[in-house]
């Protein structure tokens, strides 16, 4: 096999289309594991029969050489598989971007405005995730092993059930998982901050900016931040939050982390600003709160999947006014004449 100089600009003329096709066929045959000695002899004859064949084969070798660093790596199988997964995902993104308008979901203007308020990379990853919900949508899916997953508004996750592992990656928003028992296959959830291992359970995982929140309702979950050596088991009735490097103290599980699956926002003595932020996740667009009323405490159950009704309910129990400047631009301000209480 000729392995002479590596110059990309051969002195000989360009190979004809047929020579390129033949070279590709020969390559596919010779590396297939099914080539016989007669085949190799034929190939040698083909190579010697015309200059352009020799040139074409030189190209084949150049291309093959690009794989060398991968081929000689102990992680090559992982690299090839990883490439396949990434490539598939990226192809889906191209298709998604072509259908941008349709994909934004919900009513046109509201959806467009919601899109503008999110940073692009996270949104794009959500578009190409295996499972996702639009703004305001709450949905439940059953995975192939019987595990149930509820997705909150504007949430997305990828599923990877190969090998001896059941793995989800939470890409956006919040999910509640009820795992199906499978003694042979551990169940893990990855987030940008680290990982969780389910120990036979029902639990919610939520992305809150740079923090992962996990609340457990049945069984137990092992929480492990990416960089920290620390790991902790969270039991039913408990919750915690962690960044990539730190794990916060365990607290009592917030009922709200389960109530959303029924389309309900449960609020137990929380500042209005936080309630507004949560409602915005379901409503999209902009939902601002004036500083004078941002600290008003709120309690009760509100319809998360009908955020405008929730806002109307808030308006009826608090000294506030909800101003709809535009459908997707809403402000909460003090009601005139009312004095905001502590």
């Amino acid at each position, binding site marked *: 096999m000729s392995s002479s100089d590596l110059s*990309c*600009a051969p002195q000989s003329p*360009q*190979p004809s289309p047929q020579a*390129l*096709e033949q*070279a*590709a*066929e020969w*390559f*596919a*045959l010779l*590396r*297939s*594991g*099914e080539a016989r000695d007669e085949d190799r002899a034929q190939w040698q004859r083909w190579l010697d029969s015309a200059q352009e064949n020799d040139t*074409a084969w030189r*190209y*084949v070798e*150049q*291309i*093959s*050489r*690009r*794989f*060398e*660093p*991968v*081929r000689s*790596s*102990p*992680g*090559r*199988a*992982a*690299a*090839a*598989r*990883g*490439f*396949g*997964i*990434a*490539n*598939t*995902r*990226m*192809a889906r993104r191209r298709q998604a971007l072509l259908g941008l308008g349709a994909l934004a979901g919900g009513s046109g203007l509201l959806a467009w405005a919601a899109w503008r308020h999110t*940073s*692009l*990379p*996270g949104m*794009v990853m959500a578009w190409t995730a295996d499972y996702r919900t639009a703004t305001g949508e709450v949905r439940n899916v059953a995975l192939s092993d019987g595990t149930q997953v509820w997705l909150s508004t504007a949430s997305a996750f990828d599923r*990877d059930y190969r*090998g001896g*592992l059941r*793995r989800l990656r939470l890409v956006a928003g919040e999910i509640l998982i009820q795992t199906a028992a499978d003694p042979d296959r551990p169940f893990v959830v*990855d987030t940008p901050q680290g990982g969780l291992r389910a120990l036979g359970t029902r639990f919610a995982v939520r992305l809150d900016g740079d923090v992962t929140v996990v609340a457990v309702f049945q069984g137990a979950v092992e929480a492990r931040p990416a960089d920290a050596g620390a790991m902790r088991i969270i039991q039913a009735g408990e919750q915690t939050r962690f960044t990539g490097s730190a794990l916060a103290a365990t607290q009592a599980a917030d009922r709200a982390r389960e109530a959303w699956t029924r389309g309900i926002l449960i609020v137990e003595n929380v500042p209005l600003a936080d309630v507004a932020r949560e409602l915005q996740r379901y409503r999209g667009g902009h939902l601002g709160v004036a500083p004078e009323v941002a600290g008003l405490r709120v309690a009760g159950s509100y319809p998360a999947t009908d955020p405008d009704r929730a806002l109307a309910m808030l308006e009826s129990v608090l000294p506030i006014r909800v101003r709809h400047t535009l459908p997707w631009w809403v402000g909460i301000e003090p009601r005139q004449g009312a004095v905001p209480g502590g």
Partner: protein
Amino acid sequence: MPSPAPARSIEELYCDHHGWLQGWLRRKLGNSFDAADLAHDAFLRLMQASRSFDDTLAARAYLRTTASNLCVDLWRRRQIEQAWLDELAARPEVAAPSTEHQAIVVQALLEIDAMLRSLPVKAANAFVMAVACGMTDREAAEELGVSTRMVRKYVAQAMLHCLRLEARGTAAELPAHAPADARPA
């Protein structure tokens, strides 16, 4: 390599547009480190292309297009890198690669990705699986869940695609973050 644009006009372009470009990238990417890197790379490309512009609008349109392409390249790089690391994590028997080794393998995968970008996904994935892992058609067929006949077809299809690029000379184009001399010897 084309002769670089006269130094003075590049300086002017830099003064006029670098701050704006970096801000645009920061908003698009959500972080300032990547934004600084890509702004730098965009101006490098501008220098290599030795372009001149009639006005600010034309210059910014060019820079914005270049920067957008660099964003896509960066995203692809991260996707490929992360997918590989995820796969390695699921294989505890393979020792974690050194940072240097990682960089070399990721760079090779990016070059391969650049070659295969406009190829149908299944053919590209089969090609990489067969060639990168040195699998026989039968092994690759089992791994991918297709017939050996399909594997042979995909490999030939992909190689032909690459050969055409090679013949046109466009296969030599390196992905965004590669230093000029990163090609394997």
